[in-house]
């Protein structure tokens, strides 16, 4: 059974002359534990596709299943961990309390929450910052808290929409290393939206290339570079070849 199965999905916003056909005939199947990136020009429907999977929007055509369930059922059984471009931490809560928020809502005991939050903060290397407040953290640290929060309740599927888009290049690469390290340890399914070709290639096993208007999948590039990937990977010939392949796939449909 695939972790995510998307069949003939389309999405039209609005109706009449002003309507926007955001997605058309999307077919995509993602194996459990796979790391998949979505890349494409701005406005091609990457975020929309992620929202359809995450049951934040209903599709106008086709069908989606997540681990055999409808997206709605999957959301109610807390299968989704979401990370957006903005960390969206709650200012009035400490870092620890932010990580505990989903567990609080899901009714976990206080002991369990504390233990999970500590564990998650260690995982993102912020063990000493539990008592700090979001405004006391740098952008990269905030984003790591957001990742810790998304993982705290052990969702099976991680949906990430340009999570590192607002970070500088150095921090961004550090975050990519860290995300891969976390992914290799937890083996969760990840759908990762990005604008950066090297980021997509470095992180994922498959890079899904999309085109605009209406958004559709034009190519799926398999990235068969071995894990663990590290600094050497970034300088590897095969890495550059894959970057070129994705770039050309993007150009074809300009």
């Amino acid at each position: 059974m695939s972790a995510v199965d998307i069949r003939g999905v389309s999405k039209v916003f609005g109706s009449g002359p002003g309507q926007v056909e955001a997605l058309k005939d999307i077919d995509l199947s993602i194996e459990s534990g796979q790391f998949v990136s979505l890349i494409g020009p701005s406005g091609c429907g990457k975020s929309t596709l992620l929202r359809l999977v995450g049951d934040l929007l209903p599709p106008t055509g086709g069908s989606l299943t997540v681990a055999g369930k409808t997206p709605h059922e999957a959301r109610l059984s807390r299968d989704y961990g979401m990370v957006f471009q903005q960390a969206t931490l709650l200012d009035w809560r400490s870092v620890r309390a932010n990580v505990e928020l989903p567990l609080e809502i899901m009714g976990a005991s206080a002991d369990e929450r504390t233990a999970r939050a500590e564990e998650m903060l260690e995982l993102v290397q912020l063990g000493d910052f539990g008592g700090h407040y979001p405004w006391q953290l740098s952008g990269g640290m905030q984003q790591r808290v957001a990742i810790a929060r998304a993982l705290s309740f052990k969702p099976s599927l991680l949906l990430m929409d340009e999570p590192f888009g607002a970070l500088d290049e150095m921090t961004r690469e550090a975050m990519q290393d860290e995300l891969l390290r976390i992914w290799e340890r937890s083996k969760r399914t990840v759908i990762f939206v990005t604008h950066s070709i090297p980021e997509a290639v470095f992180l994922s096993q498959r890079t899904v290339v999309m085109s605009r208007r209406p958004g559709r999948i034009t190519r799926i590039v398999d990235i068969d570079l071995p894990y663990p990937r590290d600094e050497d990977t970034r300088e590897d010939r095969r890495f550059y070849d894959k970057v070129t392949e994705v770039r050309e796939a993007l150009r074809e449909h300009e």
Partner: protein
Amino acid sequence: MVAGAVDTWTEGRRLPQWLRSTLWFVAILGFLLLMWEGYKFLWTEMGWSWPVRPINRSMPHTWDIVDALFSPARRGGSDILLVILGEAALFTLREAVLGFVIGAIVGFFLAVVFVRSPLAERSLMPYVVASQTVPIIAIAPMVVLWAGRNDWPQWIAVAFISSYLTFFPVTINALRGLQSPPPTASELMRSYAATPNQELRKLLVPAALPYIFTALKISATASVIGAIIGELPAGLPNGLGRVLLRFASSFSSAPEKLFAAVIVSALAGIVFVAAISLAERMIVRARPEVFQAEPESLSVATHRGIA
């Protein structure tokens, strides 16, 4: 933990925050008194009479006002004016506080209904706005009359009049605050399958608190005004409303009494607002302007992340 860490290098030379604001308050008060007496002096010397003639019957000396506060209110009476005004202020504050509480609860409740249902907002908001364009002078006698029919104490009727002025700022600001979290925050709550109540308790209300406290401060002053105005048609003799009216009518013979009453009324409002500011400071964790994390531990963690 927060306040102490700010600019530690200047801490030694600076007075504590509360002392500084108190000193400023006193300094500004002194300046205003000086302006008042200066105006009287200069206008008298120059023989000017515009905009106000500097005579004692329209502009009493500041010391005469203070003197009036500590003199018996009536010739041969035993209570000094300050005590009488203080008692009147307490009476009015009781109405104002009850009106404030009713107004705040109703105002908050309306905001929650509006944020839950845009239809309710669109259909009810015009009435909420319209309610505030009806002069309170027109509403007050009706409320007093209805309360009288139902044998409610008059001061409760005044509290309701006061709540009429109180709820509006709370509704408008609380609604703004409840709508303040970014859409992604609500999407996160949705992804946790949070119930609407959980979303309200954990996200919307905490986000709205700073907005609500701003409104409560506006409402506190409005509730005192509402109570004073409400006392007039209610014919309540014990509140500030009646006292102000009485002293206004005898203004030309004893102007310092009206000024004294105005000062005490203002003090009542200030005390009310100060109490709310105190509650705000205890409840809302203000986001400080100054970056306060210890710089060293910050850079350590960042480097660890990169290495």
